[in-house]
């Protein structure tokens, strides 16, 4: 057992690489964070930034080969998940840590009744018999707000709408009362009104059950209202991590600033142009020698193109991967004071 002081998860310098035809892709290249009990962490990034691979690594769901966790520790409640055998991992996965995926249609088995899929979880992990499992499954569907759960439980996935399917997924993920819930883009495939319902549900369940949550999304709006702290990823690297309020108020990384500015503001002046980050996300297999963001960064200087940037500590909880992190932070503070 590793001493943890109220921390449910400690990830230290995790690196997950993939062997591809184009060479080694460093999908996650050194990520460190802790998650306290009951806390919500947001991981934000564009496609290919490594946010999903981080979480698949924690769940030990990286396909090997081509992928491999090459270094780092993932300590979940005192145990390094990396050192466990697959059988031991299976006992934790689905029971003590659970995951919700983006697309509820592809993550439910279309041939099996909802009841079969829900009951399987508790029969396996909690040793329920059929009757107990069924009762528990109905209770869970009730909890996540599926009307008429008693009858709906024998339906097939296609008989449910997208939002309802995501509720079923959440019911399944929460059936063993997990300590950690990983939600990977849980609302991306849903309409806004349904997204609001699902986010409200996750918030509510979190408050009632005290679950710790990792919320992965590309939508800065979603993390703003849901999380305690945020990690911003780009090209497999952690570019910035900070408490949610601080990250939005005073970002210390040009990429974070760019992302925040490129979201349309409902109160904007008509006819003004939207801020855009130029260029394209990099090819993670062929990163430039310096900062991976340098080719798109407005304030990049020679050093940014030549040298890999340091992970600068702004304060105890706030770090930014940038040669000019302190300067960018100072600018953000000055901009905020002007408001």
């Amino acid at each position: 057992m590793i001493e943890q002081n109220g921390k449910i998860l400690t990830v230290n310098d995790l690196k997950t690489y993939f062997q591809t035809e184009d060479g080694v892709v460093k999908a996650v290249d050194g990520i460190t964070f802790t998650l306290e009990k009951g806390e919500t962490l947001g991981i934000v990034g564009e496609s290919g930034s490594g946010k999903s691979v981080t979480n698949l690594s924690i769940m030990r769901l990286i396909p090997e080969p081509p992928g491999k966790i090459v270094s780092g520790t993932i300590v979940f409640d005192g145990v390094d998940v990396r050192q466990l055998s697959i059988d031991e991992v299976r006992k934790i996965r689905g029971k003590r840590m659970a995951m919700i995926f983006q697309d509820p249609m592809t993550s439910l088995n279309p041939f099996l009744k909802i009841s079969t899929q829900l009951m399987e979880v508790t029969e396996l992990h909690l040793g329920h018999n059929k009757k107990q499992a069924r009762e528990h499954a109905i209770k869970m569907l009730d909890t996540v707000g599926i009307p008429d759960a008693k009858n709906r439980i024998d339906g097939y996935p296609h008989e449910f709408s997208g939002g309802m399917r995501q509720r079923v997924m959440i019911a399944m993920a929460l059936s063993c009362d997990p300590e950690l819930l990983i939600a990977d883009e849980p609302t991306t495939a849903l309409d806004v009104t349904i997204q609001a319902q699902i986010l409200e549900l996750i918030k509510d369940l979190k408050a009632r059950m005290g679950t710790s949550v990792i919320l992965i999304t590309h939508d800065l709006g979603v993390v703003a209202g849901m999380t305690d702290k945020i990690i911003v990823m780009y090209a497999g690297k952690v570019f910035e991590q900070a408490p949610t309020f601080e990250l939005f108020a005073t970002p210390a990384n040009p990429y974070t600033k760019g992302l925040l500015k490129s979201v349309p503001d409902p109160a904007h002046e008509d006819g003004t142009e939207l801020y855009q980050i130029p260029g394209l996300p990099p090819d993670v297999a062929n990163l430039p020698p310096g900062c991976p963001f340098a080719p798109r960064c407005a304030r990049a200087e020679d050093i940014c193109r030549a040298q890999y940037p340091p992970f600068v500590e702004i304060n105890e909880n706030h770090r930014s991967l940038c040669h000019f992190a302190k300067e960018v932070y100072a600018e953000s503070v000055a901009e905020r004071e002007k408001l």
Partner: protein
Amino acid sequence: MAENNENNLLSLKNLQVHYKIGGGLFKTIKHVKAVDGVSLDIKKGETLGLVGESGCGKSTLGKAILRLTEPTGGQVLYNGKDLANVSQKQMRDERKNLQMIFQDPYASLNPRMTVGQIIGEPIRTFNLSNGGSVEEKVQNLMETVGLNRRFTKRYPHEFSGGQRQRIGIARALAVDPEFIVADEPISALDVSIQAQIMNLMAKLQREKNLTYLFISHDLRAIRHVADRVAVMYLGRIVELGQAKTVYAEPLMPYTKALISAVPIPDPEIEAKRTRIILKGDVPSPINPPSGCHFNTRCQYAIAECRRIEPKLVEIKPQHFAACIRISSENPHIEENVKNGLGVIGN
């Protein structure tokens, strides 16, 4: 409200797209009213945003205007012609002026054609090279949309999602159209790329005096790009007005809920605001609720809402809504409910 005005590029009059489903021996034929009598003017040079949840018929409406889906009723007036009722051959010619940009830049480009062929195809089809070389026109178009002009020999898979969307835009521009239906043009793209495509479309609009129908479920994007917004629910337009006004002072309970559901990227605002959380899903368009389609999810619904089909009426100047519980004298539904007003509109 659909007057023929020379400021209007297109006028839709009671446009309908009904699909037949079921049928066969002993089975009743049902209709899905994907677009159920939409009347709408699209003004020259504007961007009209069309928002709604999935299944509300917004894409079908866009396609019906271009006859990519056949309308089953109503009119699409354009340059004195009714596009909904011209022959296929005439419609083909009209597509020189009316083009479309699709959502999925992965599915809407032929993987076996080079980019040069894709963008050049409409130029060849309509003989628009004016004696010059097609190749040169293609290269100029690629430059216009921000692609390297040397890339004409490449295939779609060699480009990223954002670049592919630029190819789709170049193909639409190839015929020099007046009007473009953009169906979810940014939904499949990353946040930083979305801003690029929105800015590109705005730039092209200024330079070429284009008119857009911008279809999206992303309310933040619509607020940014659109001059006017139409909100659609189960085949009908339920609110229409200046984007600024609709977002600041929405009239319909549905629009209010939609706008309140959008997460705002500011934790301080998020911590304070209260959301209107709608109950349930969008009902099936196969058997939509009677009367006002929204009545099953509306917190202000009364018995009459299940009976009366509300018409889209002007509540405030240039701001239309379809709700029987509001009128131009009493536009605020919360107050009307508090004061016990029942049916006052329509």
